[in-house]
């Protein structure tokens, strides 16, 4: 069966520090991968999505970046965090663009 792992669950980082959030999927090949951010009480904002290794589409201009070094690994990074980067980050995968999405448990990031 397929599973998705996202870590860490919570993270407190100072302004200006780097960020690396990792997401891995098991039990499937060539998934579509997504990073979303959710502000408190709000909907999901699509940040990046990837349909293959090295193929990253950026949805929102920001100081975040994403990489897909392996087929089932998706990494969200920042060189210097801003206060506005605080939020709940969710990784997800789908078989194709319009099938059911499977979500990780999320990372609560607080930038102080």
């Amino acid at each position, binding site marked *: 069966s397929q599973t998705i792992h996202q870590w860490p669950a919570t993270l407190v980082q100072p302004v200006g520090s780097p960020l690396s959030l990792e997401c891995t999927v098991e039990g499937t090949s060539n998934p579509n991968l997504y990073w979303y951010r959710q502000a408190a009480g709000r909907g999901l904002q699509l940040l990046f999505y990837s349909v293959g290794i090295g193929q990253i589409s950026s949805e929102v201009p920001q100081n975040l970046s994403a990489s897909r070094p392996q087929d089932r690994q998706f990494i969200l990074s920042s060189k210097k965090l801003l206060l506005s980067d605080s939020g709940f980050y969710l990784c997800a995968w789908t078989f*194709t*663009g319009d099938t059911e999405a499977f979500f990780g448990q999320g990372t609560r990031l607080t930038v102080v």
Partner: protein
Amino acid sequence: SQQGEEDPQALSIQEGENATMNCSYKTSINNLQWYRQNSGRGLVHLILIRSNEREKHSGRLRVTLDTSKKSSSLLITASRAADTASYFCATTLGSSNTGKLIFGQGTTLQVKP
């Protein structure tokens, strides 16, 4: 911009009552999906309805789709306190293989025991 917009933003009902949430979208779709999110957790898929379907049932859930009005509704019958959560609709922008999954702002449902 969001593809799907839910209405109402918040809903509070008593246990046993029905809850109806609506979703409107802007472009043509292959399907529309509904998800549930418990506070502080990831989203869980509830149901997918294809563009050639008008209604779909899953347990106490009933989803309708009106492609002419670009809208969908999620009905939860005989609600329980455990149904308290946020509910999101989602559609795909782009092709079915490489399109991106876009979520609405969600409806927060509170079911009072």
